[in-house]
């Protein structure tokens, strides 16, 4: 479970995240919408322990991130906007390295199977990643989430720059992970994917959660209109 309690983070007096209360339960996909600078990435950084909150706290499975950031990170899989891999290594070598760092050892066969499950065929997995498209790199990121059996998944603009087919494949995998009980927090500008995949959607404005909708509430509404309305409010 991912949770923030009155989380506040300031940069040189500017409030980036303002008393944010957020809760993503296991099996949920929470889409965090908001304009650039609304505090989405700052929130993710607080979950990862890369930023210390000025007040309030971020929790992973009930444990304070600030108290033990390393322990929190070991329960999280993180997929940034650009999954960056080591270009002189193959996909499977990258996955082996990252999963080993996360404390999970897998055989070569298991790693290939995980990549395949994430949508990367063996032929591509055994190729150096220098030639990978963004979609392929995102798949390695998903495979890593599978390999580490993370309890929570943090996504920062994961579908930005993906073509529709790759974006669709990605969301299928995401839903599969949520179906396995992973709590997913996805910061995104992709309103379409948010409506398609999220179980709940929140709109962050000036570091505050302006509004929060359940999936059923936005099924038949124009999410873009709703989003713009909250931004201009």
């Amino acid at each position, binding site marked *: 479970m991912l949770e923030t309690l009155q989380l506040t983070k300031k940069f040189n007096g500017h409030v980036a995240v303002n008393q944010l209360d957020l809760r993503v339960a296991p099996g949920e996909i929470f889409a965090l919408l908001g304009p650039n600078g609304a505090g989405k990435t700052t929130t993710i950084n607080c979950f*990862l322990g*890369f930023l210390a909150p000025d007040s309030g706290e971020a929790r992973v499975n009930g444990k304070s991130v600030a108290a033990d950031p*390393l*322990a*929190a*990170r*070991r329960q*999280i899989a*993180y997929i*940034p906007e*650009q*999954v*960056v*891999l*080591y270009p*002189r*290594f193959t996909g499977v070598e990258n996955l082996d*390295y*990252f999963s*080993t*760092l*996360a*404390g999970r050892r897998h055989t070569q066969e298991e790693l290939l199977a995980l990549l395949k499950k994430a949508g990367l065929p063996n032929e591509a997995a055994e190729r150096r990643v220098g030639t990978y498209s963004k979609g392929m790199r995102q798949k390695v990121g998903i495979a890593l989430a599978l390999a*580490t059996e993370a309890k929570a998944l*943090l996504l920062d603009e994961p579908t930005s720059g993906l073509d529709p087919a790759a974006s669709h494949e990605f969301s299928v995998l995401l839903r599969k992970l949520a179906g396995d009980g992973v709590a997913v927090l996805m910061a995104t500008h992709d309103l379409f994917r948010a409506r398609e995949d999220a179980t709940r959607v929140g709109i962050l404005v000036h570091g505050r959660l302006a509004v929060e909708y359940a999936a059923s509430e936005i099924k038949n509404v124009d999410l873009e209109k709703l989003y713009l309305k909250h931004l201009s409010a």
Partner: protein
Amino acid sequence: MILPIARKEFLDAWRDGRFRWAAAIMVALLGVALLLAWQQGQRTRAERTAAATLERENWLNQGEKNSHSAGHYGVYVFKPAAPFAVFDRGLEPFVGTTVFLEAHRQNQAAFLPAQDATAMRRFGELTAATGLQLLAPLLIVLLTFGALAGERERGTLRQVLSLGVRPRDLVLGKALGLGGALLALLLPVAVIGAVALGKLPGADAAGGWLRSAWLGGAYALYLAAILAACLAVSAIASTARAALAILLVCWAANAILAPRLASDLVQRVLPTPKLAEFETAMNKAVQEGMDGHNPRNERLQEFAQQTLKKHGKTRIEELPFNFNGLVMLESERMAGEVFDHHFGKFWNRLEAQDRAVTWTGLAAPLLALRSASMALAGTDFTQHRHFAVAAEQHRRDYVRVLNEDMMNSPPGHHGGVVGRELWEKLPAFRYDPPPPAHSVRAAMPGLMVLLLWVAGAWAALLLVAPKLKPN
């Protein structure tokens, strides 16, 4: 966690074509430098052996003359080439290789190899030591500048840290992996070099393996300090480009600027006299006594009186030996005191300068390494001094034999005519270089400074590691 990171870094470095090219160039340069120096070493050794043999022949075949003339005929002695000069020539090009031994004078070693060099030497000389001192750090810079700053810039640092990796483990893993890549590159060269050096004539006597091991240790300390310092810079630099710029400036400061600054500074603080001043002062002391108030003639007159009194005679001609020979012995003894004082003071000053330069290595580790390296290779000033003292001792022994012969010859101005029988009584100069323990002692200050660098650089790296943050 450290080992998987080290393994990945090791593989990544070896898969990097830039590293492979740079490594190949460096290994080729080291190999060429060793080979050329090895050939030159063989040539020098052969030349000096031939010259020593010829000089001995000249001495033995100088013909008949009185022993005092033989003292002025003199003899050249040659400094044997230190086997490890093949690795590090140290001061060899700048100190003389030959000493002319003659009566009444202690000459400085002459015929500096640097005098025979072309103007190209101004650009420096490529030896295996300079390759390791200058190029290996450059390779470390190229290997490390992006190790952390680049990962931060690309975003992999964020991913790695998001997995719960301790920053300290990451930094240590990188140091181990990159150090391993460098070791895999240099170790075969070092082993081949050590074996080749071990096969050089005289290397066994010079404690070949022991010197190799100490040299290996000194260079390992130097490179370990530089590796840690480079990683620390990469950890705090905002971008890989900034890290590269900082490291290149540091490299230039260490490799180019520091040696010149240090020698200028030390010459200013601990100046040495000009050669002409030194010789004038010494000649004056020979003539007028060390205090300048005890002229040589008066001292010798007094000596004559004491000798007559001791033998109960009133005239020189009554003495049972050739008094001129005894005077020569006495004047050599008096001059010897002056030489010991002046040369001792001069050499002590040169050694103090070397020590000061070594301690300026606290600001630039190359200075400490150079000092340790040339000491361990047997090419530093302390070993040159050892040779000069041995040559002077040989001069005194041979002049003493000649003067004793004069003393025991029939009375007359400079004794009777003598020949090959006496010349053969004087053994050829044989120089035994100091044992490795002497070199290790001389290298100790440099090694201490390098140890301080290792401790400081690694402490700095471990200090900045916890502050490692992604963008």
